[in-house]
């Protein structure tokens, strides 16, 4: 019985990790990554490692998405200013 839940958690982790790698856009990758973080925390819990699960939860649920999304925003803003500068130069 308790093996079934381990198998389900393992399959979900493998599927979401593969999906996170298969995404192309970093923002969408961050979305899948946050799901992966929560699923991984559940996997650690069913393997009776709640301390590691808590670490994964604390880092994966909010902190990693925030760091990735802030980097994405910076890169996009930079692209925008560069485009504007290029237009100014062409004029």
């Amino acid at each position, binding site marked *: 019985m308790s093996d079934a839940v381990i198998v389900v958690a393992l399959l979900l982790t493998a599927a979401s990790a593969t999906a996170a790698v298969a995404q192309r856009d970093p923002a969408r990758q961050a979305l899948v990554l946050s799901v992966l973080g929560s699923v991984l925390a559940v996997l650690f819990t069913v393997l009776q490692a709640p*301390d590691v699960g*808590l670490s994964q939860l*604390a880092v994966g649920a909010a*902190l990693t998405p925030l760091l990735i999304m802030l980097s994405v925003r*910076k890169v996009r803003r930079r692209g925008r*200013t560069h485009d504007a*500068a290029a237009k100014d*130069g062409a004029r």
Partner: protein
Amino acid sequence: MNRLRLVLLAVGGTGLAALLVAACLGLPGFGGRSHPYGARAVHASLTRHTANTIASVNFDQRAYDTLGEMSILFAAVLGCVVLLRQARDEHRAQPQPAEVARPVRRYALIVLPVALVTGLYVVAHGQLSPGGGFQGGVVAATALHLLYLGADYRALERVRPLAVFETSDALAVSTYLVLGAAGVLAGTSFLANTLLPYGTFNTLSSGGTVPLLNAAVGMEVASAVVVLLANFLDQAVEIEEEHGS
């Protein structure tokens, strides 16, 4: 050149795969009854009245490893601060205020202290229940950033004196080192858990130096995450490159 790289990758990958398979074949069976390391770790943690064996492994039996992990985080954050500083050809733009729906703002303002107290609870009870300095510190630091999510960056900047967090980051690392050196001065060895009485099992004061080291790590992680996110937020929201440079 490209082919050489591929060949190198193939050779390295094959070697790694062979080693991994060999290691997996040598593993004990899944879910077996014999746990030589686990039995000894549990025994050691019980003799030192630490209810959570993981905390005992992290902050007592392998406290030296935790010091290394802590220094890695400290150095990583230091590197980020240096890399993400405001360069000469960049200027700071005033962040624009954001209009956030009222229920979202209220939720952020209410959950902010609740998450902070939960983080402190996780740090303080690291030796009793799952959790510890790292987990609680991250939660406490995330709580602070609800102000950015629920309002805007200016509101966060008002309650976040960055110099204080940078100082407390360094202070917490030194506290860990001083607690370790106190063992040397007391005549045992570095980070040996012999300074304090072990206390009553399953209470807040049990485990000797484990709760103190936990608190130091909690403070270090919380400050480090705040400083790290501050640099990321500065870059994402405030710092702009000069046009036409």
